[in-house]
């Protein structure tokens, strides 16, 4: 009986620990990057020579890949003739180790506070507003910043803030900004959903633009990957995402402050 109790106790403790540790990956992005740096540092001189051999053309070519090991391989190829067999082996071994770490890195979501260049830009789209006028991602260029609000018709907190977003749209017009809504139910020109969305917008007195595009497009996938609604992004004139998105309604003071910070950053950076 005592043994049973002990086992049960151990189980419950491990469950508690498991629950509290939930979601923490074995290694974080920064740990993996630190490991990569440690590998390269061991043969720093060799690597400096190799990496210095890369010119602009090489880099442009290599940066098409997000895998840093590709850049290292290219560097090794460049200086191969100047290396002794031993040095060549050292470098290729290092590159192989880095590749392993890079593979793990690619699996991980980007770390908080660090956004990779690839996810920095709001994905391109071609679509329509809810009245059927064609729109595409060039609309960001018209304004210093664009506030993009993701919502859906069955989401009560989303619907609750539509009026506030309309007020925000009036306010930011003067600052060279615009508010745009994306209702994820209206994607793919879903006529019923568009009718419902328009009716809700009208009831809430929201007159700013709402747009729809294909769910299979990059922007469509981006929209369908969002799991907290509402989510509000700020996009700058170049189509880049500014700061972290605001999750949840902007109706409370904290969220509004966070949104305003993103807007201020976008205005400050505009024209630089």
């Amino acid at each position, binding site marked *: 009986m005592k043994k049973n*109790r002990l086992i*049960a*106790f151990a*189980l*419950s403790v491990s*469950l508690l620990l498991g*629950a*509290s540790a*939930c*979601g*923490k*990956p074995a290694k974080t992005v920064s740990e993996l990057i630190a490991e990569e740096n440690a590998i390269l540092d061991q043969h720093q001189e060799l690597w400096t020579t190799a990496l210095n051999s890369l010119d602009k053309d090489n880099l442009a070519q290599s940066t098409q890949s997000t895998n840093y090991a590709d850049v290292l391989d290219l560097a090794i190829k460049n200086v191969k003739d100047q290396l002794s067999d031993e040095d060549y082996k050292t470098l290729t071994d290092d590159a192989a180790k880095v590749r392993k770490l890079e593979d793990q890195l690619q699996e991980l*979501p980007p770390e*908080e*506070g660090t956004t990779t260049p690839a996810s920095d830009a709001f994905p391109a789209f071609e679509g329509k507003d809810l009245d059927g006028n064609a729109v595409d991602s060039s609309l960001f260029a018209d304004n210093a910043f664009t506030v993009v609000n993701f919502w859906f018709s*069955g989401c*009560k907190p989303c*619907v*609750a803030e539509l009026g506030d977003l309309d007020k925000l749209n009036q306010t930011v017009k003067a600052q060279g900004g615009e508010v745009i809504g994306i209702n994820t139910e209206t994607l793919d020109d879903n006529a019923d959903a568009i009718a419902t969305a328009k009716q*809700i917008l009208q*009831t809430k007195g929201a007159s700013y633009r709402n747009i729809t595009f294909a769910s299979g497009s990059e922007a469509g996938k981006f929209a*369908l*990957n969002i*799991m*907290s609604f509402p*989510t509000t992004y700020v996009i700058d004139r170049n189509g880049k995402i500014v700061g*972290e*998105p*605001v*999750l*949840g309604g902007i109706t*409370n003071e*904290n*969220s509004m402050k*966070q949104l305003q910070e993103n807007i201020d950053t976008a205005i400050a950076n505009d024209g630089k």
Partner: protein
Amino acid sequence: MDKRNIPVLARFRGWIQAAAALLTNIHLPNFLQGKLYQGGGKAVCVPGLNCYSCPGAAGACPIGAFQAVVGSSKFRFSYYITGILILLGVLLGRFICGFLCPFGWFQELLHKIPSPKLSTKRLKPLRYVKYAVLLIMVVLLPVLITNELGMGDPFFCKYLCPQGVLEGALPLAAVNSGIRAALGALFTWKAAVLLTVIVCSVLFYRPFCKWLCPLGAFYALLNRVSLFQMQVDTHKCVSCGACAKACKMDVDITKNPNHAECIRCGMCMKACPTGAICYRYGLGDKTQTTDKGETI
């Protein structure tokens, strides 16, 4: 005590509970990525109380789904989900609480933490609170308290459900800074509810199931007509009272084998010195006693 008389189901209950909790939340990699599974499985309800917003969840929570439907502007009642619940209730009844519900298992594990254990026998009237939770928070308030577009809040999920914090808010907030930033007073309240349930679970056996769970309340209503039944062989019973003493849900099975609170855990079977109690599945006369208890 002769172990052979105890049915396999009751003997391996802990393992069945573990397997059910795992299957209900099978999308384990999502815990690391802070994502939700959004595939076809979410169109169906799992039998137990298991948050839709748990990253690993394989299906929807019946109570959450019911509120989402009745709270929407288009519907005032959900026949689809009520139908699923009645089907599950008739097929299994509160066997689901005892064997399949992840939150029931969670409370049981907590109860195994060594501490003074308190009896709930004197707290029996609190059992009726869960029916009020079902009627008021799940069925009525989402329909009655609505905005200008007829949309209501999922009151139980929003204000009471501790499983939502345990499976949804905590794992998501752990890996997602945006969600962490959005946590406010509501989260503090719900975390306090969860903490209270955790502390009570150590001291009492399954306090949430007994007193608050609207899903347990629904299955309790169907327990009497469920195909999964308990049967007491009156010829074998020596009226020693060991079963009632062993029952942690405060049921005297000899008086009422299919009591609304019986979660079919089988503790009475293990306690019975004559092997007079058994599981019974199917239609037929429940009162008839057999020479040899059928076991499944």
